[in-house]
């Protein structure tokens, strides 16, 4: 392989990206050395098993990926701003929409959700950490190495270019001979293993680590939504694992699972992809529903309306989500029976979702509503998501879908579902739980400014796409002529996307501003909230709760505050905590190189790093690490300090 095949060449923007990657990496290395932060980085972050720190790392990675995916989106919108634009060529445009999709779903939405899960779930159920803290670190580092592996593809080897769905035969070796789609199969596989382990970890955490007295029906709604999400993860991700493995065999070892000849079946890929892909939609949207439930109930000053029906509808969604996948390829040409069946199941899934919408509305009804930033996002979510949902029902009708299929109408629909359904939720969740992690709120004025920019510009960007789709503009077309008449609405969408970018810039600036100037919160419960995470100090000490709470009702913390219902009755005792460990990080690094060598089919180094992975696992099996104990004296000291007592 020659150097000009290894590096992506011939594109001035790519050279600029290469230069900036080198400069930023150098700046980080020099900065860490100059400020003598290597030890701090290793001890406090790279080796940590603390669920709060892992959560913060997940959220930081997600924000970086939001930037990467956002730049992709802006590049696409620039190319489509007017007829016959020459900003990107067809190949580059293909790569950009492919990476935009994968990065936004798998490397932005998922880690952001998993980050919030990590931060909040153990606190909400009154636990000291997740069930398997070390495994949690492994999950993060596998996700991170998968994400980095995927991201280097645009300067080394070339990005995947067959869409985020990577449909065969386009993604086959025959029609996509570069290593681009190898990046797809290997990087997603590595990140997917991490996600699968997160799913197992959180199911066990929620089922086994709840504080005494917290029965299943006393769990906060976010915890419920995460439990159900993790069940979907555990059952949906294996399908992706298998599909990606078959893809890898097809592309690297000459297998014929998805080929057109030799008994292969190209549409089987689409089938397997969506057997995972549709539950995946609910994996990113159900936790968001949980976040909204917490926020809406807190800022309406009421308990959540219809708690039981919320739980039942989520269980129903989790089952139905596995029964609708074929609606992604109605036009494949199977009979009316198949399309009819999947039409009905798809429309059925709107029922439990509608139940949840009405529950939120009734929670708001006669509440004393406070318009804080997280609440604004939650309130904007309801109408915008409903537009996404209703257009979804339009797409669900198989016969009508022959008109909408793969047009901009579809693109507008899923952005109307995923942006309010997930992005608004994770931003709202970040604003809501930020004071718990850092001890101060994000500035409300800047937050509201960012909210209005994002909410308005979102509609300016995506509403025109519905009409473009109905006029016949298809998805993934990289340019169009003036005679199509697509120009004006596309220009409007591009203007909206610039506003959206400004909104996100204000959001990032508000984080920076708040770190420097926002007054520090001294109450540890700044929102007057209802659930257990607010019962401990902010920032949370590493052991979470000095004394394990005894839960006697739903929203126990609220009744402790208002009715003096007892919550912390036990005495402070020694606390058993897990030790930090560097192995998960090392494992992540090895996986990165293993994946890299696999992608380029460099077998000898791939086999060596594969053996290294097995050795790492074997070492772990024979290791004895019983953790450490925090003494009562130490706990008392920390508690006094966090309370602000003058000792």
């Amino acid at each position, binding site marked *: 392989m020659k150097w000009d095949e290894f590096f992506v060449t011939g594109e001035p923007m790519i050279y600029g990206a290469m230069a900036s990657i080198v400069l930023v990496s150098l700046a980080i290395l020099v900065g860490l050395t100059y400020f003598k932060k290597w030890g701090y980085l290793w001890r406090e972050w790279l080796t940590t098993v603390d669920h709060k720190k892992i959560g913060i790392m997940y959220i930081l990675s997600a924000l970086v990926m939001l930037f990467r995916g956002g730049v992709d989106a802006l590049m696409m919108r620039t190319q489509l701003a007017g007829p016959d634009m020459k900003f990107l060529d067809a190949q580059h445009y293909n790569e950009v929409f492919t990476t935009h999709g994968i990065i936004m779903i798998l490397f932005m939405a998922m880690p952001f959700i998993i980050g919030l899960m990590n931060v909040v779930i153990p606190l909400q159920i009154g636990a000291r950490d997740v069930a398997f803290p070390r495994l949690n670190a492994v999950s993060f580092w596998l996700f991170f190495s998968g994400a980095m592996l995927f991201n280097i593809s645009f300067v080394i080897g070339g990005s995947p270019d067959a869409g985020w769905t990577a449909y065969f035969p386009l993604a086959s070796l025959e029609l996509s001979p570069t290593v681009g789609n190898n990046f797809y199969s290997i990087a997603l596989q590595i990140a997917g293993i991490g996600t699968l382990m997160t799913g197992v970890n959180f199911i066990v955490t929620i089922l086994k680590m709840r504080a005494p007295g917290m029965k299943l029906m006393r769990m906060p709604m976010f915890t419920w939504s995460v439990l159900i999400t993790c069940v979907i993860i555990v*059952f949906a991700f294996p399908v992706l694992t298998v599909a990606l493995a078959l893809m890898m065999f097809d592309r690297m070892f000459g297998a014929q699972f998805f080929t057109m000849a030799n008994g292969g079946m190209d*549409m089987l890929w689409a089938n397997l992809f969506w057997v995972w892909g549709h539950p995946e939609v609910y994996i990113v949207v159900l936790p968001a529903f949980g976040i909204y439930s917490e926020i809406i109930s807190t800022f309406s000053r009421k308990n959540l309306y219809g708690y039981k029906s919320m739980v039942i509808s989520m269980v129903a969604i989790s089952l139905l989500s596995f*029964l609708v996948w074929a609606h992604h390829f109605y036009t494949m040409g199977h009979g009316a*029976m*198949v399309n009819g069946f999947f039409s009905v199941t798809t429309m059925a899934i709107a029922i439990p979702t509608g139940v949840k919408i009405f529950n939120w509305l009734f929670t708001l009804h006669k509440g004393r509503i406070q318009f804080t930033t997280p609440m604004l996002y939650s309130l904007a979510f309801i109408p915008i998501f409903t537009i996404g949902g209703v257009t979804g029902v339009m797409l669900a009708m198989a016969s009508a879908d022959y008109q909408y299929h793969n047009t901009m109408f579809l693109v507008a629909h899923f952005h109307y579902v995923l942006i309010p359904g997930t992005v608004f939720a994770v931003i709202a969740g970040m604003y809501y739980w930020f004071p718990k992690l850092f001890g101060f709120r994000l500035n409300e004025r800047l937050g509201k400014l960012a909210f209005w920019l994002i909410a308005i510009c979102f509609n300016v960007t995506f509403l025109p796409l519905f009409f473009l789709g109905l006029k016949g503009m298809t998805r993934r077309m990289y340019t169009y002529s003036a005679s199509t008449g697509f120009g004006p609405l596309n220009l409007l969408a591009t203007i909206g996307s610039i506003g959206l970018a400004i909104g996100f810039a204000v959001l990032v600036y508000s984080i920076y501003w708040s770190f420097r100037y926002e007054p520090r919160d001294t109450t540890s419960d700044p929102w007057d909230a209802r659930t257990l995470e607010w019962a401990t100090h902010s920032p949370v000490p590493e052991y979470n709760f000095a004394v394990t709470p005894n839960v006697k009702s739903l929203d126990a913390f609220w009744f402790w505050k208002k009715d003096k219902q007892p919550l912390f009755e036990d005495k402070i005792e020694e606390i058993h905590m897990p030790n930090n460990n560097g192995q998960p990080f090392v494992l992540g690094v090895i996986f990165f190189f293993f994946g890299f060598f696999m992608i380029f089919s460099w077998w000898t180094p791939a086999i060596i790093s594969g053996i290294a992975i097995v050795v790492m696992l074997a070492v772990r099996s024979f290791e004895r690490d019983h953790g450490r104990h925090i003494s009562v004296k130490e706990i008392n000291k920390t508690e006094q300090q966090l309370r602000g007592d003058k000792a």
Partner: protein
Amino acid sequence: MKQLFPIRHVMGYVFSLILSVVALAVIVWDMSFTTAITILLICAAIQAAVQLFMFMHIDEDKSNKASNYTNIAYALFVGLVTIFGTLFTMIWGYL
């Protein structure tokens, strides 16, 4: 000593070996398609049970009975939906 000896694991291991030999016999003795697939399906079901009871001790902790069996039922549901749903959409749907 009786508690320490992992009798169920050893039994599970022996069962697995027997099942592997039976599966191999299907190939070696060149049976008809129907007989072969029937034998393989029965073996697969037994193997799944061996896995759950001998190796993973699903019946060991009585307090978790409900959640364990709910999970198994859910897994069965998803597995069957994936297999028969794929057959339905990819093959039977064209008839």
